[in-house]
């Protein structure tokens, strides 16, 4: 490949292993936007986002909150008549903005994902009380108290463990992880 790739080519490089068709095949039918449960919360709908990527509007795409609001329900990918993997695209954009440190400061998504991966690597299981701290404080006192109340009653009923649980043979699990991502200390 010669010449500096454009933004849309960069995105397609991120999606090189995706099973979906290239974004250039989008016919702007809007099926993805119509089927998206998160679309009302997004500043640009998935259809517009694809259009903007194809038009190389890098700044606007990266400043958009759309891909962070994706709930990964994969309805768009399933229903796309051109068989584009739109949910995969949303993940690609998340990676892109995280690798380049281009995401907005006040976003919950990046910290949430990081905390999630961290708890999984440490114990092999997700642990809600730690996970919740990554976003809980950004919602104000009232929500915090409500969440705390909920969590307490769940804990009393044994629905949330008081201490983080660890899976058996954690070492083996970390070795599996180490094969996918370079975890420090893992073989």
């Amino acid at each position: 490949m010669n010449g500096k790739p454009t933004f849309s080519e960069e995105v397609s490089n991120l999606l090189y292993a995706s099973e979906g068709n290239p974004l250039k095949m989008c016919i702007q039918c809007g099926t993805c936007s119509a089927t998206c449960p998160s679309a009302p919360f997004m500043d640009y709908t998935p259809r517009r986002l694809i259009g903007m990527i194809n038009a190389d509007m890098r700044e606007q795409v990266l400043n958009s909150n759309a891909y962070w609001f994706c709930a990964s329900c994969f309805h768009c990918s399933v229903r796309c008549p051109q068989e584009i993997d739109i949910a995969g695209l949303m993940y690609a954009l998340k990676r892109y903005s995280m690798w380049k440190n281009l995401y907005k400061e006040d976003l919950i998504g990046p910290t949430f994902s990081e905390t999630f991966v961290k708890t999984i690597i440490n114990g092999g299981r997700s642990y809600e009380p730690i996970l919740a701290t990554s976003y809980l404080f950004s919602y104000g006192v009232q929500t915090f108290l409500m969440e705390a109340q909920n969590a307490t009653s769940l804990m009393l009923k044994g629905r949330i463990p008081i201490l983080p649980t660890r899976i058996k043979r954690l070492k083996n699990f970390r070795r599996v992880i180490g094969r996918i991502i370079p975890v420090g200390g893992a073989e």
Partner: protein
Amino acid sequence: MTQQKRLLIIDDDPDFVEGIKAILDAAQYNVDVAYNPKSGLQALQTGNYDLLLLDIMMGRGAEGVMIARKMRKDPKLREMPVLIITGIREQIAFLFPGGPMHPRFVEVDELVEKPVEPRLLLEKVSTLLATVEAKKAK
């Protein structure tokens, strides 16, 4: 230098590639670039390169690691020196609890962290090439 050395860069960050390519071009190396792991691997298999400069975080995730592993299994590519250039510690710092991280996950020869000092980069490249020459001479 008797013969111009051929280098291959596999990295998905065009701005970074432009930077190191300029440095290496100025040092009289013949540099090729691949912007995604797939075309990178193809280039490796078809072209005849003396050294590979490899990024870790590409495509779906740690694709650089996958490439290095595939190279290790390939008898033709096994001998090729690899210089890993990555900002990985910065990106997923939490995965590395202190200590210098040497990439034990692949059989690579060197690791440089982004951002790269031009002098350091050239130094590492020439040492790696020299080591391989010495190995061949044996």
